[in-house]
């Protein structure tokens, strides 16, 4: 089996996973107690108005009819209307997803860069005070929820030292760049609006760093463990006997295979970024999809909840396929195993 077949197989598996997810979330949001339309319209709206909206949303139909209707429309990109925002959910996602993606991408890059760097430094200086300090920090980062960092950073850098802005994506009086991707920093770059770019970047720092801390710590720990393991292997000893410098061995021979577990876990960490983003978005008033999704859950906005879960599901699956490809690229043993399976 070649790489192409491997990717095809992963895609087919992903479709099955997403179908299962769609069924699960569809049922879950509907069996939860309480009438979603009543929740949206408020307790004083007369019952006939509630019934009319239930009929409009087909909520008075049997579940299987509702599901067939919903999945058919979803496949066409129509998630129905949101009870919360009173407009097509697709429009909401188009507005809120770029903000979350921008936050998650920035956090992801920060997480990967600093996680690997700290892990490598820790392994390279094993059992030194630097190693011990990084390990303590990494443990702290893993066990501390993102919102604690968010509140901490907000208080430190927004309240005590006014270093970074604490809310939103741009300053109040900053002219936002025209929407191209929906990501402020990217759109400002594309339109050459440097002031907006710098301002957007400033607004990203605190929420993105707060969001990345758990993943960063995990990456550092995994990279360290893997690198320590590889540095004790025979091929490293062989390179050393050839007279190669420690730095060459580290950068050319030990680091690449040590990154395989790190990259493998990166997909999961990226998904965790999306799901952990809610409180960070709330604390920094970041108008993203995670915050929208949790508000939708609280308001029992059935269409919005289902759509957000599906969008996050698709993102998660896509990232994991990409990670599988990168891991296969990094590790020749995996490529050989894939080829052998086909033979």
């Amino acid at each position, binding site marked *: 089996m070649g790489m192409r077949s491997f990717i095809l197989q992963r895609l087919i598996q992903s479709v099955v996973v997403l179908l299962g997810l769609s069924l699960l979330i569809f049922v879950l949001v509907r069996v939860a*107690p*309480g*009438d979603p339309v*009543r929740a949206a319209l*408020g*307790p*004083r709206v*007369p019952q006939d*108005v509630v019934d*009319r909206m239930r009929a*409009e949303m087909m909520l008075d139909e049997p579940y299987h009819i509702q599901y067939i209707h919903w999945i058919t429309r979803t496949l066409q990109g129509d998630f129905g209307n949101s009870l*919360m*925002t*009173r407009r097509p959910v697709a429009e*909401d996602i188009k*507005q*809120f997803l770029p*903000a979350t993606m921008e936050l998650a991408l920035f956090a992801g890059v920060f997480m990967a*860069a600093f996680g690997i*760097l700290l892990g490598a*430094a820790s392994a*390279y*200086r*094993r059992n*030194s005070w*630097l190693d011990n300090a990084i390990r303590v920090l990494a443990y702290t980062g893993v066990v501390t929820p993102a919102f604690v960092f968010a509140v901490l950073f*907000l*208080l430190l850098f927004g309240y005590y030292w*006014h*270093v*970074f*802005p*604490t*809310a*939103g*994506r*741009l*300053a*109040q*009086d*900053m*002219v936002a*760049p025209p*929407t191209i991707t929906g990501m*402020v920093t990217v759109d400002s770059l594309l339109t050459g609006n440097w*002031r907006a770019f710098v*301002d957007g*970047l400033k*607004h*990203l*720092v605190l929420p993105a760093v707060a969001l990345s801390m758990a993943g960063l710590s995990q990456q550092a720990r995994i990279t360290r463990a893997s690198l320590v393991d590889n540095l004790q292997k025979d091929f490293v000893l062989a390179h050393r006997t050839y007279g190669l410098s*420690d730095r060459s061995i580290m950068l050319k021979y030990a680091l690449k295979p040590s990154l395989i577990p790190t990259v493998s876990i990166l997909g999961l960490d990226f998904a965790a970024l999306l799901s952990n983003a809610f409180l960070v978005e*709330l*604390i*920094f*008033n970041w*108008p993203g999809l995670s915050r929208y999704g949790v*508000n939708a859950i609280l*308001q*029992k906005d059935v269409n919005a909840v289902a759509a957000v879960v599906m969008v996050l599901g698709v993102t998660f699956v896509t990232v994991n396929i990409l990670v599988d490809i990168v891991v296969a690229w990094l590790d020749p043993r995996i490529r050989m195993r894939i080829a052998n399976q086909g033979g």
Partner: protein
Amino acid sequence: MFARRSNRHWLVLVLALTLLVVAACGGAPSNQGSGGQDQQAGTGSSGQAGDGTSQPAGRRVLRMTHSWPNQIDPARGSDMASSVSLINLYSSLVYPTPEGNVEPYAAESWTVSDDNLTYTFQLRQGIKFHDGREMTAEDVKFSFDRLMAIGEGFAYLFRGVVREVTVDDTYTVSFHLEQPFGPFLNILTRLYIVNSELVKENIKPDGPYGEMGDYGTEFLNVNDAGSGAYMVRSFDISSELVMERFPDFFGEVAPNAPDEVRIIGTTEAATVRTWMSNRELEISDTWQTAEALASLDNIPGIDIASYLDGGQLYLMMHTQKPPLDDIHVRRAIAYLIDYDALVQQIFPGTEKARGPVSRSLVGWNPSLPELEFSLDKAREELAQSRYAGQWDQYPIEYAWTAEVPALEKVALMLQANAQQVGLTIDIVQTPWLQLIERAGSKESTPHLASIFVTPSYGEAGSQLRARFHSSTAGTWEQLEWLENAELDAMIEDALATVDFVERMAKYAEVQARVVELFPTAALYDNVNRHAYQACYVEWPQLQAPIPVLGYMQDARFIEVFPERVASCGN
């Protein structure tokens, strides 16, 4: 083993990367900007302004946090955030006063027919909508018809009250009532007038309202069509409404009223505290805990504003379910609540209730007694009950609303005190939506539930009808299932009384009768509490609060003095 070189290389690398990020992004938040309209949806915004102070140079900004979502369509919104938005974006025919009456607003005068069934309003001439078009009687009729067709928001106030609205001439409009309704002018404060032409231009043909298509709901979901003191500049539907002053507004505006009003959708305590401390937020939401408010109160320049909002927390008692169908048991339960602890510890800042209507509502009966905590009196009442000695056969279920954790404390207090007099109370945590469903039938309604009810307009009649008239039995507003024909007649008679003084007297009688029937224990009169920047914000409504949801935050009366920010202290 690798040689133990200096760790400096690694430290330098980590520090260099960190500095790179900080250098690229850090420094004091510089926000020099030209101002202007947001071009990109969903950007949100930070509080810092162009000159590095908390207020943009040359502009007065009022920022308020609120719970979300915020519906700015006047045919849909009715909660706190929506009410504040609608009041600032739209105008109504009349405006509520602190005394519980109304004063002319878009209408300059009105007359009432002899049979009290027709109210005819003369509009002020020259009122402009935000697009410059003049308001006419057609707009009033259109707004009413649209509200009733959609049926959401404040439409429930007019159902069964108004038969139709007719246009007499360009500036004259008449409301024809089904029957005389004393507080009619009060409910008119909730009819927000939309620009009918603008809405018609933006109607989508596909919609549930026949030839009116979607009735402009998609358009008014994120835009305004009003004539209020402020107009929508941008609306990020998930987090922030930005409004700017309408220069051609017809009504009164304070000299230092804000040029810009921002309603921000968060109640997160750490965020609110940071913004308040940085002078990036002028008025906090009412959802801050007592601890959070105490902490904010310690910041120089910040005060806590308190005002009665007309609502009460009730302990509703199912009057048709044994053993609560016996008035002695209901009275005994009322004696089991420590009201002092309630208003001082569980809900600090609130005030002890006196009767089933808040003292802030016009028509409140001040002669009614406060409820008291007395285990001895509870025992005396229980001894008179026909269920005496059989309490183990009649466990009492107390459903507390899961979304309000403090209510569990009330339930636990009652349970503990009930045990001392031999009553068994089972506490059940119930999600709000489930409680609404349970209220739908006598069988599923719990014995006891504590529910907060606010009036729809600033008059006792609003609360009395919602809470005790048979038409609301089976809804969340009346879990008591009182269904008392005599009381219904008294409430209907009071509401149909057009003479103000006479109506108030009848309200007082109704309240006294409710206390005699004892279907409920009013636990406290609710007080709304906000932290606000007293050092540079003047909030005159606090001197004479209007107990109608949202009107305390009519921004045109609030004054902002950016030049005083520097002297607020830290």
